[in-house]
């Protein structure tokens, strides 16, 4: 029988398999403790953290649609200090790499946040550049590459932790965005974050969300996310972490064949809490059936 291995070395960190859970869909891990065996996961990514505690948005926060959901959580989080104090140690107990998703509404926020995280035992920073930039009138840092580049540059200066920049699919030019982030010092790229979408309550004659727009995720976005992962993988020479609508192992293999070293499971955790575990098992089974010894054989094969 063939022996297949799932492990991936990514930015110097050892992942025992390529399946991580996406920011904002898995809390700080502990929420799913007992429901699935978290120690089997490739890695954990925290809910998006900001320098200071945030209460998040008012009004409707989630709205289900065909094939996906819209969310407008508004980065509710306890702030980096409270995270380090109250949650990090518990997370480390799962004995898998811990990646902190870092957000901010100004460049200074990002820099100060990264400075603090640099001194902790986390394995990597995932820089979430889809946050509204208060100075630029609320437009995301992730839309224009020039602005994204500056954030990455500045964060790069203050930390030695590997930086994975998480791209927004709403970027004007996703490939250029990835290239610029790498130029600015990103060690890896992850994509995609949620798509800017909206929904209307036709009886109230109002947008469903107080902020009008919300982030669209779930199986419905997969074909577009996969295309972006493919394009970016071809364009940069740092490793890429792919996500967006992955719900089963077949989706995961598609992303890996499109070039992803790691993948993240987001909305699928809500659809099926065991999704991440079933995806790990499914990839393994697929590799054995197809006589694939290592992910290196199929990664980026197309």
């Amino acid at each position, binding site marked *: 029988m063939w022996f297949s291995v799932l492990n991936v070395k990514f930015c110097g960190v050892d992942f025992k398999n390529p399946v991580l859970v996406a920011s*904002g*869909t*898995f*809390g700080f891990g502990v*929420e*799913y403790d*007992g*429901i*699935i065996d978290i120690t089997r996961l490739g890695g954990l990514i925290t*809910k998006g953290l900001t320098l200071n505690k945030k*209460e*998040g948005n*008012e009004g*409707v*926060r*989630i*709205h*289900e649609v*065909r*094939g*996906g*959901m819209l*969310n407008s*959580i508004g980065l*509710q989080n306890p702030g980096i200090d409270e995270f380090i104090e109250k949650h990090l140690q518990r997370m480390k107990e799962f004995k898998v790499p811990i990646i902190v998703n870092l957000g901010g509404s100004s460049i200074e926020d990002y820099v100060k946040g990264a400075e603090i995280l640099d001194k902790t035992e986390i394995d990597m920073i995932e820089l979430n550049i889809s946050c509204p930039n208060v100075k630029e009138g609320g437009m995301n840092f992730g839309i224009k590459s020039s602005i994204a580049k500056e954030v990455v540059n500045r964060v790069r200066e203050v930390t030695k932790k590997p930086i994975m920049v998480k791209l927004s699919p709403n970027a004007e030019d996703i490939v250029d965005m990835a290239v610029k982030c790498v130029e600015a010092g990103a060690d890896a790229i992850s994509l995609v974050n949620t798509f800017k979408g909206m929904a209307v309550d036709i009886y109230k004659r109002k947008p469903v969300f107080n902020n009008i727009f919300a982030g669209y995720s*779930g*199986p419905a976005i997969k074909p577009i996310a996969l295309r972006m992962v493919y394009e970016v993988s071809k364009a940069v020479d740092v490793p890429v972490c792919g996500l967006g609508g992955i719900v089963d192992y077949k989706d995961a293999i598609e992303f890996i064949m499109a070039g992803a070293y790691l993948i993240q499971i987001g*909305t699928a*955790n*809500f*659809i*099926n*809490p*065991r999704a991440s575990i079933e995806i790990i098992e499914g990839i393994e089974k697929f590799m054995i059936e197809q006589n694939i010894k290592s992910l290196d054989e199929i990664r980026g094969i197309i």
Partner: protein
Amino acid sequence: MEYKEVLVYSNVKVQDDIYVLSLEIEDDVRAGQFYMLKAWEEEPILARPISVHSSENGIVKFAYQVKGRGTKILSSLKAEDKVYVLGPVGNGLYTEKFKGKIALISGGIGIAPMLQIAKGLEGEVDLYAGFNKSPYLIDEFKKYCKNIHIASERDTAYYRGFITEIFNPFEYNIVICCGPEPMMKRVVDMCKIYATPVYVLMENKMACGVGACLGCTCNTKEGKKRVCVDGPVFKGTDVVFSA
């Protein structure tokens, strides 16, 4: 809390769009807790939170109203069908701690969690149940409640109007309320006048049901709380109602 596949024991229509689904679940359940139920594969993508109506002998019963896509699928379930369940979720009520005269106040399908609550209470329990049209799920309460008051906006056999019009918080040591938000707010306001302790069962759209997504928060005096795991039961005076 556990995620598993269980079997339908029965699914009975009790009136128009009201059903009672019995599932083969062996869990230890507290009154006021709920399960995330999913009886479909692809669409809708999310599970639906439904309160425990009663739990006994390895059967957990759910009373639900057909509202949209998810509950419509639930209503079509037959014995032996499979359902994915995640639960029991939520803080629930430690009913054994409650003593004295207790009022349960429900609006519409808000009566669903009240049965398991009534069953666990030791004091003297009165039910106040308000309905749009004809009442439902009332019979079972006769075993556990001293008085049952029913109001209906349309069924003339009962008090015509809102249930809050025939309820006096002054008569009770504890009030527990579940129903539409405006009604819960009204009950909480009434209880404040007499300083009667009041608990409310909050509702919100849910994605994860485990406290991870922060989609289901409600406003409280101590900031945002997750209805799924910090609730669904809150002290009425802690909640900042939006309406």
